[in-house]
């Protein structure tokens, strides 16, 4: 079959072009690992200086997750200025006074948490214990667990977009596209062949990236592995068809790269890596036209909320819809070269 011929050829090309293959597999693993190193830290334990604080309270403080330093006033003030401390705690008749270093929101909230807990424990009245349970996730869910699913989707999308777009572009610049159109190949056969060849490759790519995140980086995962595969595959197809489509509007590799800030970067902002709940509704709506929004949401449903297929069926349909739309536009764009 003719589509098979194209698929076979693309796989051959991949085998020869070790660098692109590495880019699509090793680069996502490398960046995910870096993200993991940065985001997967334990919760921050702040350095707090105590000045003239009664002994019992210091004891309670030392029981918290914080480094407590007993210091004199001037010493503490200097250390705070030199950023060696996150906060300085003093005491007078009115009560505690806290001076925060203040430049790092993470440290600020860590200090506040420590103080709240200390208040609670130092009061004479017994405080009724609040029992906290989690509907999804667990108390150990950290930032990496939260953004990880979206990141997996993002890297699959990004690298397939680039490699797919550039190889279709090269097909045009080196004249082989024209050569193919001078054969009885139909336009849809060319597009399908591309999807097929890259499809085989992206399945392998997705397995490796997802397995690495889940089993090596230990990202939080309660759902089914193959659901993750399904979503990354659909994302890859959307990325490929969008990449090949946009490559028709680029004259060289450099112009292809210019689509990154236009098409890829906005998806990072709007797809849910950052919390958008406080954003203007009309701004939030921008995310609705981006494949990664749906891919990221579905991946979170699967990995964090452990949902079955019904939990993210809408996203699956929408992702398929994006791909179908882009594929049809691709077939249409080839009409520029040959009417038939």
């Amino acid at each position, binding site marked *: 079959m003719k589509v098979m011929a194209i698929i076979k050829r693309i796989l051959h090309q991949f085998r*020869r072009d070790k660098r692109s293959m590495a880019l699509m597999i090793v680069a996502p693993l490398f960046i995910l690992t870096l993200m993991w190193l940065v985001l997967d830290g334990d919760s921050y334990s702040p350095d707090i200086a105590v000045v003239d604080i009664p002994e019992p309270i210091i004891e309670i403080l030392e029981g918290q997750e914080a480094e407590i330093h007993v210091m004199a006033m001037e010493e503490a003030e200097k250390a705070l200025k030199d950023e060696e401390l996150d906060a300085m705690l003093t005491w007078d008749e009115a009560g505690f006074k806290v001076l925060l270093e203040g430049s790092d929101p993470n440290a600020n909230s860590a200090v506040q948490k420590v103080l709240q807990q200390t208040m609670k424990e130092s009061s004479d009245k017994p405080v009724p214990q609040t029992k906290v349970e989690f509907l999804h996730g667990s108390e150990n869910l950290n930032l990496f667990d939260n953004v990880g699913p979206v990141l997996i989707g993002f890297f699959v999308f990004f690298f397939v977009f680039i490699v797919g777009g550039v190889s279709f572009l090269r097909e045009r610049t080196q004249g082989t596209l024209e050569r193919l159109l001078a054969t009885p190949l139909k336009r849809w056969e060319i597009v399908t062949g591309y999807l097929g060849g890259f499809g085989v490759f992206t399945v392998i790519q997705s397995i490796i990236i997802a397995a690495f995140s889940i089993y090596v980086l230990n990202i939080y995962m309660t759902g089914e592995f193959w659901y993750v595969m399904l979503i990354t595959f659909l994302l890859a197809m959307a990325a490929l068809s969008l990449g090949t489509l946009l490559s028709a509007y680029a004259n060289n590799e450099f112009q292809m790269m210019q689509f990154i800030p236009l098409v890829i970067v906005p998806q990072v902002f709007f797809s849910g890596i950052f919390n958008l709940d406080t954003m203007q509704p009309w701004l939030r709506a921008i995310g609705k036209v981006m494949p990664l929004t749906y891919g990221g949401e579905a991946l979170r449903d699967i990995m964090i909320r452990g949902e079955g297929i019904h939990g993210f069926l809408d996203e699956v349909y929408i992702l398929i819809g994006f791909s179908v739309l882009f594929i049809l536009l691709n077939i249409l764009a080839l009409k520029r070269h040959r009417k038939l």
Partner: protein
Amino acid sequence: MEAVIKVNDISHSFGKETVLKDIQLSVGKGEVFGLLGPSGSGKTTLVKIIVGILKPISGNAVVLEKTMPSLKQMKHIGFMAQSDALYSELSGRENLDFFASVYGLSKAERQQRIREVLEVLGLSDDIDKPVDKFSGGMKRRVSLAAALLHKPEILILDEPTVGIDPVLRKSIWEELNALKDEGTTIILTTHVMDEAEKCDQLALLRNGHVIAQGTPHSLKKDINAATIEEAFLHYGGVGQ
């Protein structure tokens, strides 16, 4: 003679630049038809229109009684583009295997045809190297080989012998004549005058106009010219 290819009143322009103007041609079965013209005269544009990968502004090309583009007729055409359209990462053999399978040849047919074609073009030795390590002439021959694989009735070759040494050029012409004897119709473009002499029919193209058409012999005889070159200059002067 029955016309295998007919070009009817084709005009084409890119933006404001008119590249072809009212071109009329008719190519008979088993003819070697040469398009001779200087660089930029519109040869490539014309063959692309005949092959069906460029839509003219007006007029049409009819191949085997069907207006192009026609997927059915594309099976019967072997096209060699002016720039070598090959996948540079793949070996020459992989390129040929790919183009052969696009025409639906079975595995056994592909192997046999590739062997035959390579032998004719003297390529057998280096064919398993990646194409980006090929010399210019080798790439040219692989492109030609790719056009021959499916034994097309019609060959359309855009400057097939550029960058090929005289010995090989001679053997390529022998092959083209052999194909012609089997009934293959061949259109080729060239700006080499002595190659033009080898064609059965010639169309002289200049600035998008056909300035003269006929057998090389009649073109020369009509104006008592000794060479095609002389004829070209003569017709060019008159045609302006």
